[in-house]
């Protein structure tokens, strides 16, 4: 089943003086349990592509479907709600909230969608990422690798169908980077997510099912 699908999507930035075609017409999809990576030079449009899928900006033309829903057509507020439900973000500088412990980062999700906080669930999730003894630590007390694993835990916790990771390993050394990507691949398979990872390090793509290259706004399979 296709969890992510883009139909004829383009993105043009127009600042009045000149037009930048950041994303040329693109058709693209990711299946359940598929781990996709996107590589490409700086400024080629990778982040633009990823944020359009995440609904942080709307395409100039075309449609984005998430889990069969016309995601890009939704109103701003509904899109945010859908994003909260369906999409887990992992960012370069980690998307953790500095004043919450690892446990509280996850508990925040329960507070927002008014579900019960289950300590066992949290423990088993953190155990999979081998950070279960860091539950009560603040992000500033974690190493870069631990922080990214906590960010993965946060992204997986509310059980979204899609995981979007923009250079999740940029701040890590090679060993940590491989660890994090391996975990990401493993969780994608185990939990049947559709995962897209943007990276500039081609070696990391060995864990991925499909590798795309972005160049000047044109996406092509490698």
């Amino acid at each position: 089943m296709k969890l992510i699908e883009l139909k004829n999507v383009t993105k043009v930035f127009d600042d009045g003086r000149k037009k930048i075609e950041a994303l040329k017409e693109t058709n693209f999809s990711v299946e359940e349990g598929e781990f996709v990576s996107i590589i490409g030079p700086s400024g080629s449009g990778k982040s633009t592509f990823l944020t359009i899928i995440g609904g942080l900006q709307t395409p100039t033309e075309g449609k984005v479907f998430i889990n069969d829903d016309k995601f890009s057509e939704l109103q701003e507020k509904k899109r945010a709600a859908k994003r909260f439900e369906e999409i887990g973000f992992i960012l370069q500088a980690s998307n953790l909230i500095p004043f919450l412990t690892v446990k509280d980062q996850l508990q925040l999700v329960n507070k927002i969608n008014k579900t019960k906080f289950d300590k066992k669930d949290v423990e088993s999730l953190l155990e999979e990422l081998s950070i279960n003894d860091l539950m009560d630590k603040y992000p500033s007390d974690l190493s870069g690798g631990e922080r990214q694993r906590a960010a993965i835990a946060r992204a997986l916790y509310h059980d979204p169908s899609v995981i979007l990771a923009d250079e999740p390993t940029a701040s890590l050394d090679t060993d940590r980077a491989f660890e994090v990507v391996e975990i990401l691949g493993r969780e994608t398979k185990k939990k049947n997510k559709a995962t897209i990872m943007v990276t500039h390090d081609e070696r990391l793509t060995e864990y991925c099912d499909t590798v795309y290259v972005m160049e000047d706004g044109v996406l092509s399979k490698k």
Partner: protein
Amino acid sequence: MFLAWREINYSKTRFALIIGVVVLVSYLVFFLTGLAYGLAQENRTSVDKWDATGIVLADESNLNINMSMFPKDLMDDVEATETASLGVTSSVVQLVEETDDDSKVNVTFFGISDEEFIFPDVIEGEAFNGDNEVIADISLKEEEGYELNDELSLAGMDSTITIVGFTEDSKFNVSPVLYTDHETYQHIRASGFGEREDEIISAIVVQSDNGDLSGIELDSDDLELYGIDEFITNLPGYNAQVLTFGLMIGFLVLIAAMIIGIFIYVLTLQKSSILGVMKAQGISSKYIGKSVIGQTLLLTLFGVLTGLTLTLITGILLPNAVPYMNNFLFLISITILLIVVALLGAFFSVRTVVKIDPLEAIS
């Protein structure tokens, strides 16, 4: 509230400092209110005590009781449920055994008659009963150490007066009142103006059943009837005082609330990138906004209530000479006002939250 609490817990020092500022500012506001109210009361407690409907003064006195003088027999021209004659004059008293200037006290004499309704309740000692005896306001005991049977000398008079009783809440124009009979009053007043044949009084205090001036009839061109509230507002200096303090307190409340508002605003700006990440994750502006407002509420509630407690404690510890007085209606209104205005400030912050673009936060 989850986010609000966790953040306060994480940045304890920062929030302690903010609460500290709120405590100090609200303490200042509350304390100044207590002082202003206390001072205002010292102008009028003796008048409030009459529970009067109106007051009759000499027509040409322009509402100034010190300038009002007329023969006591004019009382016959006033028709009301209750009437009371009142002579007012200010003077300076001193214990007879003292001579230095520091021990002189400014007072106001009220000449009254014992069968009329403005006669005060004596809480210590007894009522005056003859020449040169007075009932004094209790503040003379509390602040000056005067006792029953103390003899006082008066400026410009040879004879002395004796305190035979004390009464409560009797201040007029910020000075304590000494009540005496009309005969003694005539002597004291005359010491300043020269003897006159008739018995002179300053005012006739009137009470009517329906609490309304329409029930009072006045049959003299030389006299003028005023409502008691009008009389109080026109006490020398009273209105200026109330307005000055009122404005000061109003501005302070505004400034205090702005300080809280600005703090919250700066805090919100500082974490706008974190808030942007939250929004990128799909956490609604509504949830974040609620937590900003919740946090403001926690900070102000805690700060203002601590300020209030400090004020109440200070009020108890202050010496009697400081005209501090609690008015719970004022204290509660200011508490609510501070919190409401601070929350208004928080709404500005919420607007910035709504405007934060999650895209910028993550790129």
